[in-house]
Every structure is written in C-alpha cells, then in structure tokens.
C-alpha cells in the first residue's frame, strides 16, 4: 500500500494511532494532525473507512448511542499500524530528496534569474 496512500487516508490512520475514535473524533483529530489541511466530510470519511475496513487496516470497536446520536468507534489493526508506519517512512524518504542539505544552496541557475530581469525590462519599457 506504500506510496499509493492518499493524504486523507493517511491522516485517518494517523488519527487512530493513540486511541479508538468515533466518526467525528476522527474528523477533528485528522484536522489537528494535518494543521487544518485535511478537512474530511462525512462522505469522504465513510468511503475511506469502508475501504480501510475491508482491507483489514481498521475495524469497528463498539457502538453506542450518545444524546440520541448513533456512534461507532474505530480501531487501528496491526496491519493498519504497519501500513501507516510504512507510508510515513516512505514519505520521510521522499521528503529527503528535496530537503536534504545539498538542495538548500541556491543553484547557479536560480541565482542568475534575478539579474536577468532588469535587462528584459529595459527592452520592454520604451515600447
């Protein structure tokens, strides 16, 4: 499953790392963990949960009624834990390609670009 996991799926699994959560708990936790970037709608959430359940990465824990609302909580399975860790490691590897030290220095090409700009301008301005 590594490298093909979609971002919402990744954050749903990550949300369940600490404890079992019910639907809205997952939505809130995923939003928190992703600094607000992953905002799951119920439609997306349950489509993902169905997929993850049938893949055996997540299973349902207990069902209860709270304030007249049906709630079912979800637990990360061992396979789910393994999958999300594998994905995290893969993304860390992928991130290194861009963020490693040798890429921090500006390359000769991008350094040359600002200098080119005034030249273009002087050509364009008179027209």
């Amino acid at each position, binding site marked *: 499953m590594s490298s093909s996991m979609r971002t919402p799926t990744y954050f749903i699994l990550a949300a369940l790392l600490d404890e079992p959560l019910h*639907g809205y708990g997952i939505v809130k936790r995923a939003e928190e963990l992703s600094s607000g970037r992953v905002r799951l709608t119920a439609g*997306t*959430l349950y489509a993902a949960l169905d997929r993850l359940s049938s893949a055996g990465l997540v299973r349902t824990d207990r069902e209860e009624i709270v304030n007249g609302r049906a709630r079912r909580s979800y637990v990360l399975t061992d396979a789910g834990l393994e999958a999300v860790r594998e994905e995290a490691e893969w993304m860390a590897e992928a991130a290194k390609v861009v963020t490693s030290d040798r890429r921090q220095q500006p390359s000769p090409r991008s350094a040359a670009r600002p200098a080119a700009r005034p030249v273009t301008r002087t050509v364009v301005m008179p027209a």
Partner: protein
Amino acid sequence: MNRSDDDRLGGWYRALLLAYPAAYRGERGEEIVGTLLDGARPGQRWPSPREACGLVVGGLRSRVGAATHRPARDIWADGVQLAALVVLAVAVCRATWWFFWARESHDLVNAVTASWPPGWWRPPAVAGIAATVAAIVAIARGWAVAAVVLIPTGYLAKLLASVFLSGVQLSNGSLWSYHIGQSEQWLYVVAALAAVFMPGSGYGASPKPSRALGVGGGGTRRQA
C-alpha cells in the same frame, strides 16, 4: 444545539443520504447522521454545502461501487443496467415526442399519411411506448428475461406505427434512410444488449460483460 434543531438538520442529512444505496443506508445511515450532527455548529439548521456535496458524491460513488471492494464484474453489470435505463428513457421521450408532437409538423410524413387509413398508427405507437416503459420497470427490478422480450416488442410496435404513418413511401428509399438516421432504433439495440448482460440475466457472469457497454457506447455516440 437542542433536539428540534437536531431533528431538522438530521432530516436534511437523511434526505441527502438517499444518494446512497438503501442497504448501505440501513447499515450506516444513522451513524453518518450522528457524525454530521456532532460536527454541526451550535444552532445550525441547514446542511453545509461542503457536507452536502460530500454526501452526494460519496453516495454516487458507493452506488457505482468505486468506494467499496466489489468485483469489477459487478460494477460493470451495474453500469450496464444504468446505461440501459438511461437509453430506454431517452427512447421513450423521443418516440413520444415524434408521434404526438413532431409528426404534425413534418411535411415529409404528412404528404403520404393520406394513403393509409388515418389513425392506424396510433395503437402500435401507444403499445410500443408502453412496452418500452414496461421494459424500464423490468430493468429497474432486475427482470432480465422480461426486459429482453419487452425491448424488441416495443421497438417493433413502434416501427409498425412508423410504417403506417409513412406508408408506401418506405420502399422508395429516401424516407427509409430518413428513419434509419432519425429514429431511436440504435437506442433499442443498445438497451437490448445491456439487458442481456445485466445482473440476473444469467449472462452477467460472461467473462467480458464490458463488451456490452462498448457496443452501447458506439451506438449512443452515433445517435448523438
């Protein structure tokens, strides 16, 4: 948020959940509504557009089977069934329009109608449209055998009505080719093929049910 707001907003979300298949709704519907109500703002009375879109898209995806792990064959079979329904609905609309509105204003047909007993076209036209409507019901209910019988019946009855309307001119070629080009017969061919391959027909287990849709795609494109 008090209970009456809950009921009202929950009602809206339940209505949106109609996008999902009934079996899925029965199993997960209340849980999804619960999650949506948990996420609602205090005093919120209307569904947020974001959640509404999410539900409609999620529902359609789960109908198509994209959201679940169903065998590809089942997904194709569902798609073929849906295609047959759409195609027959278009055929009914076209035939109704042709016989009961457009016919009056069409000189080509009016010019030769006189050579046949007036009104003879009416019973087969009505029967053809009725048989096609019955075929739609049959496909929706999964009665493949009934659909496979009703679709050609509808088509032949409609063709008979066309013959009564346009009379002997059929033999001179131009009117015949006009019918080939304009009539919805391609739609019937597509629908009949789709019905053969739909679930419950016994041929749904064919190794390549997608062929039915492939032919269907060609037919409808030619129609358009």
